[in-house]
């Protein structure tokens, strides 16, 4: 029963505070009145009676305060009081308030944005798909490939039937086709899916339907497709009669049966899917023919949604048992192979794991920015608290405990942080899809990287906000401990510029800011150098004067013979174009997203050790390739038209391969066995970069296209003309050969190289932008501190001037103080940087983490910035009028 009385009482005390105050006043009044009457009754005069009555009660206000304390609502009341007071103070110093809130918005917003991006990529990467928290990826493993391989269709069907812990499974394998748009072809990304795909993920087409059960079985039996909203709007102009229309995909007419919802992009992180076809159409889109009944043909990328409450470990066990049964039942295809599950964010066949390293850098960088923003705001609050020194001492004098003052400052910090957090979360919300800006689009492929502001992000942001509050509120509060009441009340402020004791807190904040900014700038410098090195390092082939393009013959239904005829004809025409110095085909361009062919090799003179089975990658190239692309030959010759299907099989190897397997002997004339055929080596090419600019030298060889037929290849052109001019010319020639075909975009190999190094560029931009921001904040902080210091020490400055110091002396005084501060900050920052840049590790290319150029540049930048920041206050110092300064105190 007790709480029953207590609660309404406390509530009443809280909400009817005025009423309760009046009651209290009246109660005490009643007491005093009675006491006065009593004293008058014993003979005192009314005057004496009043005095005696008041004396007997003690201090009325004290009693009231004690009564209020007894009601124990003071905590909340005081808090509200603090909040109101804080708001009033903030409103009065609007400039400072706006600046502080902006800083905090920046810091908290940046953090919230990065959290939301990470959240989006890791946890809810697929917009509109239901229950992603229970989704897992299914992939196969074997002894040689523990990282995950695709499954085979029969294995997948078996899984689907036997898995009891899965609510549902579905297949989504990325594929692509070429759609012609006028003069250009564009690669369009889509998915081969199981028939239950749309139902399994809970996404329903806005027009038409998904796939019917059974539409994923049979060979090319169901040429139907669901298209994406952007494709419907773009290519088909939002035609409401789209259902039932046909579209040729990879040479086969597909009927469009559905349009996906607007915000749905499929289930592949980083790329937006434009069409979905059922698995029965697999052989149209995948190389290698009909695979739905081949248990050994592995192409399926699948997902499973676990039943609620099932853990990953439990499901793994079930999958392990299923794999074992499969291995026992079908030893020829499944021996040594297992099927296991991956959490969604570790999907082995996805874009997520390529994004994670960049996101991982972003996190510490935004934390830095937050710390710098907090330091800035803390400094601003500190500076303002000096102005409130009088108010604080009065409070202390009338009885506020230091705890009370701490609460006041923390509450003000909280108010600021809440505003900053609100602004920051809003900004993060607007920016939540901006992650995609950092990853430059590849031609024609729509990239979609959704950010997600869910409870986890908001909770983290709230935690960040709290941290900010403490960091920012604590700073002015720490000053309360050391206020000497008597002298403070006398407003005796010492010369702050020369004085050291009270300035340490302010200075240490600026120190923190300067050191953090310095570290960021060093980081940016290192990354920039690394990027420049990568982009200017020679990859072993000509980059600026070689362009490439391709024509998708596979989608158009060409077989290898027809493709070869087409290529020959196109080559003749292109070589005849003005400005073209040479041209050649090759199956793969260097530094692309695709993968080279590879084969185990055997060399006469080389016996590999027992645990090594040498496997080397190779490229199928046409005659004149090396001349066109600019890879010099160090021995022998390159392929000619004479190396065709009737001549002896030949190969050109690279220098590393020659070194590794021939140990410096001349390999020309020797043989190498590739895929069962013995090839004669006719030339040795200089090493170049094949898959990535950062790779180590590796063995590689080339074979003639005519002896290793391909369907689609890339046309390399050596020319001085601009890519745009080549594009129109080539499109014309391609049309002339086959009116239904169009080439892909024409770009230089340098552009290709730049695109392949985009993660590095992203990192540079990020760190540079945030570093610049941090520098700006630090400069503002430094300026504010110096400015205030100068204004507080006008008396000292006036004194010095009166004693004969010239303006130059004063300038030097102020500047030296400011630059000492910066110097200390740079020293600290150097220590940080030396320690932290080691972590940049694999993003740095041929740049040492301790590169002196980066450190030197950062040092110069800091020096300049701090000079600029200190200059204005220093100049103001020299304008002190000594008479006024001395009189003012």
């Amino acid at each position, binding site marked *: *029963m*007790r*709480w*029953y*009385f*207590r609660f309404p*009482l*406390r509530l009443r005390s809280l909400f009817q505070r005025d009423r309760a105050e009046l*009651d209290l006043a*009246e*109660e*005490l009044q*009643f*007491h005093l*009145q*009675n*006491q006065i*009457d009593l004293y008058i009754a014993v003979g005192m005069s009314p005057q004496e009676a009043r005095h005696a009555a008041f004396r*007997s*009660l*003690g*201090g009325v206000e*004290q*009693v009231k305060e*004690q*009564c209020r*304390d*007894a*009601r*124990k609502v003071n905590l909340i009341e005081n808090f509200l009081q603090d909040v109101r007071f804080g708001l009033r103070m903030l409103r009065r110093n609007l400039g400072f308030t706006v600046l502080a809130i902006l800083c905090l918005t920046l810091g908290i917003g940046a953090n919230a944005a990065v959290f939301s991006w990470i959240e989006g990529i890791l946890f809810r990467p697929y917009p509109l798909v239901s229950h992603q928290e229970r989704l897992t990826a299914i992939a196969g493993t074997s002894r040689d490939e523990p990282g995950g391989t695709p499954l085979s269709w029969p294995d997948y069907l078996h899984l689907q039937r036997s898995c009891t812990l899965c609510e549902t499974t579905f297949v989504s394998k990325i594929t692509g086709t070429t759609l012609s748009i006028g003069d250009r072809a564009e690669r369009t990304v889509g998915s081969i899916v199981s028939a239950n795909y749309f139902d399994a993920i809970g996404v329903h087409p806005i027009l038409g339907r998904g796939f019917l059960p059974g539409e994923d079985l049979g060979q090319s039996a169901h040429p139907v497709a669901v298209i994406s909203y952007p494709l419907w709007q773009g290519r088909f102009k939002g035609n409401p009669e789209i259902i039932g229309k046909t579209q040729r995909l990879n040479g086969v007419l597909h009927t469009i049966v559905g349009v996906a919802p607007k915000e749905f992009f499929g289930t592949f992180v980083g790329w937006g899917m434009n069409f979905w076809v059922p698995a029965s159409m697999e052989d149209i889109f995948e190389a290698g023919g009909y695979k739905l009944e081949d248990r050994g043909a592995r192409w399926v990328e699948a997902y499973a949604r676990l039943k609620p409450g099932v853990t990953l470990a439990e499901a793994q066990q079930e999958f392990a048992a299923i794999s074992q049964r499969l291995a026992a039942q079908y030893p020829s295809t499944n021996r040594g192979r297992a099927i296991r599950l991956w959490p969604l964010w570790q999907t082995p066949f996805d874009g997520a794991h390529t994004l994670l390293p960049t996101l991982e850098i972003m996190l510490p960088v935004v934390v830095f920015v937050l710390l710098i923003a907090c330091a800035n705001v803390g400094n601003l609050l500190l500076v303002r608290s000096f102005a409130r020194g009088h108010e604080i001492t009065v409070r202390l004098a009338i009885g506020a405990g230091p705890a009370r003052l701490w609460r006041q400052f923390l509450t003000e910090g909280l108010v600021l942080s809440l505003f900053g957090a609100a602004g920051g979360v809003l900004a993060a919300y607007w920016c939540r899809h901006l992650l995609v800006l950092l990853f430059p689009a590849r031609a024609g492929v729509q990239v979609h990287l959704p950010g997600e502001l869910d409870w986890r992000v908001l909770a983290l942001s709230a935690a960040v906000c709290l941290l900010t509050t403490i960091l920012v509120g604590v700073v002015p509060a720490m000053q309360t401990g050391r206020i000497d009441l008597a002298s403070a009340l006398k407003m005796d402020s010492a010369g702050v510029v020369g004085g050291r004791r009270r300035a340490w807190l302010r200075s240490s904040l600026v120190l923190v800011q300067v050191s953090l900014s310095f570290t960021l700038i060093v980081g940016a410098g290192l990354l920039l150098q690394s990027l420049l090195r990568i982009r200017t390092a020679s990859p072993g082939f000509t980059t600026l004067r070689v362009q490439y393009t391709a024509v998708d013959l596979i989608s158009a239904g060409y077989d290898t013979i027809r493709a070869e005829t087409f290529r020959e004809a196109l080559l003749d025409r292109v070589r005849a174009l003005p400005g073209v110095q040479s041209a050649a085909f090759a199956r793969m361009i260097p530094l692309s997203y695709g993968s080279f062919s590879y084969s185990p090799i055997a060399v006469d003179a080389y016996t590999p050790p027992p645990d090594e089975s040498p496997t080397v990658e190779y490229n199928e190239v046409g005659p004149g390739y090396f001349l066109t692309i600019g890879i010099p030959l160090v021995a022998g010759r390159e392929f000619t038209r004479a190396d065709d299907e009737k001549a002896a099989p030949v190969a050109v190897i690279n220098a590393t391969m020659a070194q590794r397997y021939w140990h410096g002997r001349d390999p020309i004339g020797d043989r190498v066995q590739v895929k069962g055929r013995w090839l004669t080596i006719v030339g040795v090419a200089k090493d170049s970069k094949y898959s990535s600019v950062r790779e180590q030298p590796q063995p590689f060889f080339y074979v003639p296209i005519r002896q290793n037929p391909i369907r689609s290849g890339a046309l390399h052109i050596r020319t001085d003309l601009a890519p745009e001019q080549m594009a129109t010319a080539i499109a014309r020639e391609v049309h002339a050969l086959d009116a239904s075909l169009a080439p892909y975009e024409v770009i230089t190999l340098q552009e290709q190289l730049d695109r392949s190094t985009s993660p590095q560029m992203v990192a540079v931009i990020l760190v540079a932008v945030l570093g610049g921001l941090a520098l700006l904040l630090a400069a503002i902080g430094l300026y504010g501190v110096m400015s205030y210091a100068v204004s507080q020490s006008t008396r000292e400055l006036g004194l010095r001037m009166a004693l004969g110091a010239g303006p130059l002396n004063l300038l030097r005084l102020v500047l030296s103080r400011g630059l000492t501060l910066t110097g200390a900050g740079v020293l600290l920052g150097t220590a940080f940087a030396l320690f932290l840049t080691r972590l940049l590790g694999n993003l740095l290319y041929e740049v040492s983490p301790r590169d002196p150029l980066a450190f030197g540049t950062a040092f110069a930048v800091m020096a300049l910035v701090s000079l600029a920041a200190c200059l204005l206050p220093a100049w103001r110092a020299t304008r002190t009028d000594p008479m006024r300064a001395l009189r003012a105190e």
Partner: protein
Amino acid sequence: MHGWGIAQRIRQISKEVLQVNQGALYPALHRLEQQGWIRAKWGDSENNRRAKFYSLTPDGAKYLRHEQAQWKRLSLAIDLVLETP
């Protein structure tokens, strides 16, 4: 009874030995009210002024009996200690 009355009563009953510090009386009353052992009601006093009248709650009565028993035990113990030579 109202606060002033309580103070007078205590003085009377204790035969002028206990003179309650009036400044401490009201915070104590408010604390007791906060804890739910007494309950307050506004009314008119004997001399027609508005006053706050306090009365014991059932919980308060129980607590009072408890405290009385404690006090009896304590004072008995002290007596025993003092009387033993």
